[in-house]
């Protein structure tokens, strides 16, 4: 472990972004992700990069739009209320097929809500997040190492598919420190002939645009974009299976919830209950196949969430409602305890899938 350093999740994201070649960061202060901005403010000037504190979340995401138009790696970060403000920009980025990385270190909502960890922006992140037909690639880290790894991966995917990658973390993941290796695998950035960097009078002008007033043409753009999305659903799904080989009960959880769930699983296994975990790492595309396959052996699914139950809908869709899916949740900044999850596991074990 000699090559590992202890870092906060937020700092790991910032450093990983720099390693990935990101030299432009725009943001606005909001708890619990401000360490990302602070880290960038310190580092960027020293490496010839640009950190700029924007006047608003809206301005920040549009500055991202500007740099992305020029074909460079760029990011912004915020927490839940700030992401709502960025919604406009997210939709425009999608409409203009621009790559970017956006980090949401979630806190409890709705409204101003609280500042403690939450996963209640799941719908917002995975179902589009603003107006229009579009998706973002949504990555859900469950360790500080993954905060770093998925940041780099997020940039790669964003460039590959010309779209926004969102890191969907929460206050716990942002604030906690764990050992992290910064020996990260960065792929070469693809060519971006579409970038608006000046014609040099050598080519026809490039236009970055999300406006298309002819419905037939706009429809075609949407169809094409969704063909790309289908490719992503085929190629880019990521998940972790934990003790699923013989599991009769399957927990679905991501991020911090999956960490707590593992404690409960270890305890339940010690009591002889065959329970495992499927942890989606990509929330969009959602790992439908492993859930469907699990229905062959699993009699009950339990979705563990820091929300009123949002991912549970995707679990039900993925399992095609072949098995009951129950919810273990806390909301508003609270985190389910291992005991609460263990209780649900025991109940499921007792009922054996009978509703």
């Amino acid at each position, binding site marked *: 472990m000699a090559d590992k350093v*202890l870092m906060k999740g937020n700092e790991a994201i910032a450093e990983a972004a720099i390693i990935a070649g990101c030299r432009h960061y725009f943001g606005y202060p909001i*708890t619990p992700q401000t360490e990302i901005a602070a880290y960038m403010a310190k580092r960027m000037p020293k490496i010839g990069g640009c950190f700029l504190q924007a006047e608003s979340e809206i301005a920040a995401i549009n500055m991202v739009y500007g740099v992305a138009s020029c074909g460079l790696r760029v990011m912004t970060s915020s927490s839940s209320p700030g992401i709502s403000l960025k919604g406009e920009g997210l939709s425009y980025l999608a409409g203009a097929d621009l790559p970017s990385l956006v980090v949401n270190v979630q806190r409890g909502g709705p409204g101003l809500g609280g500042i403690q960890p939450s996963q209640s922006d799941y719908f917002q992140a995975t179902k589009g997040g603003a107006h229009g037909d579009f998706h973002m690639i949504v990555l859900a880290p469950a360790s500080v190492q993954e905060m770093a790894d998925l940041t780099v991966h997020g940039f790669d995917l964003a460039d590959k598919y010309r779209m926004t990658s969102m890191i969907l973390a929460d206050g716990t993941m942002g604030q906690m*420190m*764990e*050992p992290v290796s910064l020996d990260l695998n960065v792929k070469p950035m693809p060519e971006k002939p579409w970038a608006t960097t000046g014609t040099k009078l050598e080519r026809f002008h490039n236009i970055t645009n999300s406006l298309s007033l002819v419905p037939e043409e706009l429809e075609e753009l949407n169809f094409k974009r969704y063909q790309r999305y289908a490719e992503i659903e085929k190629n880019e799904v990521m998940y972790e299976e934990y003790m699923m080989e013989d599991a009769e009960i399957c927990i679905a959880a991501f991020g*911090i919830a999956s960490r707590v769930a593992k404690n409960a699983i*270890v305890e339940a296994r010690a009591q002889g209950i065959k329970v495992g975990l499927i942890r989606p790492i990509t929330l969009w595309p959602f790992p439908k196949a492993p859930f469907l396959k699990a229905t062959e052996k699993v009699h009950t699914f339990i979705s563990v969430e820091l929300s009123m139950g949002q991912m549970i809908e995707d679990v039900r869709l993925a399992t095609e409602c072949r098995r009951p899916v129950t919810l273990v949740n806390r909301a508003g900044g609270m985190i389910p305890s291992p005991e609460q999850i263990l209780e649900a596991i025991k109940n499921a074990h007792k009922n054996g899938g009978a509703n």
Partner: protein
Amino acid sequence: MTNKYLFAGFGGQGILFAGKLLAYKGLTDEKQVSWLPSYGPEMRGGTASCSVILSDSPVGSPIVSNPNILIAMNLPSLDKYEDTVEAGGMIFYDSSLIEREVKRDDVKVFPIPATKLAEENGTPTLANMIIVGKVLAETGDFTDESVMAALKKVISAKRADMLDVNLNAMKLGRDF
């Protein structure tokens, strides 16, 4: 072997710093490590706490709601967390700031007058290091080299003159 530490006190006592030192000590000792602070407005003058887990196996939840080692640096912290400590666990507390005794009889108790010792030592801001010295001595292994290695991770090179001061404060705690 998993140790779940909960450090608690008021903001300004160096609670998060002490926890960080412990986490770095764990990293130096090649343990699996997590460190999780409380965050938010309560950090400014109110209570501060942090969870540290050092383990031989991968850390699941980084949240410590039932510590086996509690370090209470003020009375509200002891009041709040005393009952959460696992049976057979340990409670370290600053007996110069907490006048009452620990009520639990199923835990090992270490009262250390850390603030008083720190003042007598001429380092009034290092009560946290004194108590963490004792914690390390009782729950990990306290060697000068490994502690110094961890200190070097949490104290910036610009303040290298503080390394020995901190180490000595920790020894004060260890030897108490």
